[in-house]
């Protein structure tokens, strides 16, 4: 006796969260059954393995049919075939687009191209995430990227509107899209200690302050450069950053800056002497990072540079986070007292974001 056909269709589509997770994780039906058995479901329910197999098959079939709709979440809301309560729809979408930390760290900042897709085998082997799941996550990134790529307006809002994500997930995807678009290097060994959260945090700050959409320029220049307002860094701003070079190139200005900072921080910093000794190096590092951002290549290396030029020196001197915060605050505020420096607004736009990023990046 073999079962030729075995289906269950409910008026309200049954969604088993546990099976959904297994399906998303890319397990085959037989693996999923084995995992469910191991989780002790047979003992809890008194079911047989055959029942479990049939149930798992059913859910997999349902998910397979839903997948097409999940690729365009508004379709899931409007379709008539599956009657699913709104909160369940939200859950389906949210879980489908959720990603693994290990996976996102591998592809963050990479071009979402066929080439990268070919590397998924390696990523799968390295992270222990099934290839199927890697593909889904990669395709999700790419799909979101494609849809919002050409859109105007807030990146996170666009994503939320077209994919119906929660705020949190929409912001994460905004970061992923932003990184993919600007191709920031995140894979270098010295960046390995950073989590996706760290990068996402930085991305959000950069989107808020460093992109075209950030300064509210768009309304004044409706025709030019308004595309991709949130995706691309403000080229003009990056060009202008060269002007900051004077802070380190002008020796007097640098000395003045240093003395002002030292005066302000004397007695407040546990690592004062280290700071004093390193001030010029650190300042040079931070300003040079800014000055280099005109080149695409250097933009990509932004995080590498920040870690190399600032995080690592401070860490090797064992600066506590509090001291780093004090220093960075003072360092950026003091510039306002430098009479010879004329680019105060530019400095603030640069440094406010950078300070936030650095503080986030500064950990073990």
């Amino acid at each position, binding site marked *: 006796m073999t079962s030729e056909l075995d289906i269950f*269709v409910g008026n309200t589509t049954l969604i088993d969260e546990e099976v959904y997770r297994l399906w998303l994780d890319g397990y085959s039906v037989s693996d999923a059954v084995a995992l469910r058995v191991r989780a002790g479901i047979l003992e809890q*329910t008194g079911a047989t393995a055959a029942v479990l197999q049939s149930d798992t098959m059913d859910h997999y079939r349902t998910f397979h049919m839903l997948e097409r709709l999940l690729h365009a979440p508004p379709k899931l809301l409007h379709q*008539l075939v599956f009657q699913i309560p709104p909160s369940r729809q939200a859950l389906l979408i949210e879980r489908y687009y959720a990603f693994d930390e290990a996976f996102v760290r591998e592809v963050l900042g990479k071009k979402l191209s066929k080439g990268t897709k070919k590397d998924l085998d390696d990523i799968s082997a390295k992270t222990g995430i099934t290839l199927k799941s890697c593909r889904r996550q990669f395709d999700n990134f790419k799909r979101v990227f494609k849809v919002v790529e050409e859109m105007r307006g807030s990146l996170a809002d666009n994503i939320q509107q077209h994919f*119906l994500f*929660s705020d949190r997930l929409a912001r994460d995807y905004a970061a992923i899209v932003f990184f993919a678009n600007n191709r920031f290097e995140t894979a270098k060994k010295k960046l390995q200690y950073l989590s996706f959260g760290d990068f996402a945090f930085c991305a959000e700050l950069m989107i808020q302050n460093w992109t075209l959409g950030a300064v509210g320029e768009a309304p004044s220049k409706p025709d030019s450069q308004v595309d991709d307002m949130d995706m691309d860094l403000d080229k003009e701003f990056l060009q202008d950053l060269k002007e900051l070079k004077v802070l380190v190139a002008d020796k007097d200005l640098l000395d003045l800056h240093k003395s002002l900072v030292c005066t302000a921080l004397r007695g407040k910093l546990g690592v004062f002497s280290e700071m004093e000794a390193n001030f010029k190096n650190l300042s040079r590092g931070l300003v040079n990072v800014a000055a280099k951002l005109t080149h695409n290549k250097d933009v990509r290396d932004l995080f590498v540079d920040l870690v190399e030029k600032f995080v690592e020196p401070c860490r090797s001197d064992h600066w506590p986070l509090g001291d780093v915060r004090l220093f960075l605050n003072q360092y950026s505020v003091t510039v306002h007292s430098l009479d010879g420096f004329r680019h105060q607004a530019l400095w603030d736009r640069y440094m406010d974001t950078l300070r936030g990023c650095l503080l986030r990046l500064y950990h073990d």
Partner: protein
Amino acid sequence: MPGKLKVKIVAGRHLPVMDRASDLTDAFVEVKFGNTTFKTDVYLKSLNPQWNSEWFKFEVDDEDLQDEPLQITVLDHDTYSANDAIGKVYIDIDPLLYSEAATVISGWFPIYDTIHGIRGEINVVVKVDLFNDLNRFRQSSCGVKFFCTTSIPKCYRAVIIHGFVEELVVNEDPEYQWIDRIRTPRASNEARQRLISLMSGELQRKIGLKVLEMRGNAVVGYLQCFDLEGESGLVVRAIGTACTLDKLSSPAAFLPACNSPSKEMKESPLAHPPSHGCRSTHNSPIHTATGSRLTQNFSVSVPTLIYTGMGSGSAGKEGGPFKALLRQQTQSALEQRGGSPHRFCRRREFPFFTLTAFPPGFLVHVGGVVSARSVKLLDRIHNPDEPETRDAWWAEIRQEIKSHAKALGCHAVVGYSESTSICEEVCILSASGTAAVLNPRFLQDGTVEGCLEQRIEENLPAGCGFCHIPYDELNMPFPAHLTYCYNCRKQKVPDVLFTTIDLPTDATVVGKGCLIQARLCRLKKKAQAEANATAISNLLPFMEYEVHTQLMNKLKLKGMNALFGLRIQITVGENMLMGLASATAVYLAALPMPGGIQIAGKTPSDGSYEQHISHMQKKISDTIAKNKELYEINPPEISEEIIGSPIPEPKQRSRLLRSQSESSDEVTELDLSHGKKDAFVLEIDDTDAMEDVHSLLTDVPPPSGFYSCNTEIMPGINNWTSEIQMFTSVRVIRLSSLNLTNQALNKNFNDLCENLLKSLYFKLRSMIPCCLCHVNFTVSLPEDELIQVTVTAVAITFDKNQALQTTKTHIEKSLQRASTDNEELLQFPLELCSDSLPSHPFPPAKEHLESARSNSGIPAAQRAVTVEKASPMGEGNFRNRSAPPCANSTVGVVKMTPLSFIPGAKITKYLGIINMFFIRETTSLREEGGVSGFLHAFIAEVFAMVRAHVAALGGNAVVSYIMKQCVFMENPNKNQAQCLINVSGDAVIFVRESELEVISTQQPTANCQQSCAGGEVTT
């Protein structure tokens, strides 16, 4: 020209890409009714076209309005080649023809293609203006309401229950026409869908005419079926119960406008209007082209069972004669009715009722189950002299049923249903029902002598009256075994009662009920024509007998004494016959306590054998004890002296009444008991019997927290909560063809059913505590070695705490709930509950809903736009965003249930009958996920189309939903499969009881909130 049909095509969405080059579609729509077709403009390059067409107006006869479906075809415009069809929507406009049902059909309908399934949706608005024409009921029966529900619909009162109406129409099956060889599968499928739609429209109209003749205004328990007879044709037949219903909310009686015309007709009994309004069944316009090819040259009538329980006892002193009198009265009452002999002979001929639940006082006594089967040979030979073969077949069967009922001292049959099973050219016709004595008050125009009525009611003690035997004890048609009623002690009752109806609401039941199934397979040699039919009819009595024995044994094993909702299905296949009986067992307080089951060995020589027997005996006794505990059966002990009658001898009380083919009045008897042995003694004399005993014990009870029944509601559970889940599950197994034996077959079939039930329990575990209600199994044998079982049922949650300990404090309850939280198992119910709550915030009253519905008439474009902005986050968000009430679009929740009610809600309006037939075919079976993927998608699509139609009528639920047919054929080698599904039900508007309360307290605010909430749901 009594009607104007107006159609507006608003918009489409999610259309498929028809032009690969542009990834877009140039869509336009053809709207066809009868022979008139309108077209919209082509909306270029869009997958979401906004046609916003003018109103297309069709001026048509109301006869056509009833017969024809509105056909909407979406096409892709192609300048150089033929336009490609995207898909179709058939809309049955019948609901718009009743004065008090829906007024407009408006909403998104899935665009359906028989090859590709659902391909996007289309927004359509349909209205009908009926002109007031005095003669308009001549040919059509527009005023008659149809209900699938097999009880008096909730918001109506039955003034008169007139009785049985039946009709059938026949046609050639387009699939078997010569043209099918040259047309595409799509064209063939569409021709079939359209034909069946037409035929059911015609059938419904004709039934409506009969109802009008009887001066009724509604058909309740309307059951329409298709017989796909293959080469010999297509039969669409329907039965129902004609009633005069009165709307409850409006005290002024709804007097149907049909009264006058029908009276006119009554005066001239032979008044066949010049047109085809009353023409004979088979001369339908669609049929005349071919004439009837259906004929019969062979027929075997098979013995028929009357299931009933009897006992011996002294004759009733007053009861008997009185009842005889009563019977006479009712009989004559039935006969008196009406003026036209033509019409009323028909009714007297078959005093049948398709109802399974009745107004209080309607059902006086129940005799037992009566059933009849007949094996017929379908023949291709064209025989114009016998155009009404099918009618004659059914008339024969009905006659037999009637005579069986008479033998049981009953003048009526309730819970009546008919079915067929067809394999190649052999067809088994079956009919069954419950013989009963009814209160004539409801059958009469209120002219019954009051005194008689009085006396009936006096003599009807609540809760046991229907159990009292209707037949004359002194002149019983068979030796019977009776005791005094354990409830009132006045009348005689049988010791076991089998019925096809629902448990009467006033019946006193001990404990809870449970689903009982008897399953049976019998191999049969492959044969042709007459030989085949003879072989089948020879097997049938044995199958009936064994099914009956199994039911009896299982009933005893449960420690119960009555079966309700009994449905026995015999399915014929190439090389086997399958029998499946389902019923809900209960313990009726009025009936005596059932005896146990004893096992006897035939050759008590061997010591170890003896031991084995006693071991089995112990197991059975244990099971009975366990079941009694499980179903809480602890009837009050009654000392026999009080009853004053001897303890009934344990004796086999099953009777088999056999009637030979032509002479159905001549009732011969066949003793069903195992020789002269005592009742419920199982004799283990060979391996077969051993199997039987084993199979008795293999039925596993449902896991704790689950109950199941095949009736509307579970006896003993009454605190339903609002969560319901209707589902359909289909399984097909392939038998290994090697050395098939009856035992192996039985085991396979048993396992199939048991595993299916287990799967259901597992799948629905998140709803515990819950009950599977109206569990409906259908068996078919699509091929030699394939068995297909289809189950449709509804799972309803109930509140266990409230049921068991109402005194429990709140804190205790919440504590308990908290503890269950921790169990992984119960993670879902809570979530589901919280989900389901916000998912049914329907407008609180129908006025609101109606306003919502008229709102939804606004252009879809507007509505669609607002949705784009909605986000899925939390209900709160939704509520805020959908500030303009109901401007938000689309998918409202539509509940579906096979029951006639929705727990925790009140049905405020019946919108009309839903009767849909779909064909789906594929030539890429593997690509669509194999047979399971194909059928899963199709059933989901069918549900979607039903929901869409209900929503467009302004409803939010389908009650009395039934999947009448699910014919699945596959050819994996060719990568092909085809499936036909026929579903029906009643579209309704319901309002949650909790919402009703809210309205009464704070009407204005509730109004606003609800309409907002309605918008929320729709996203």
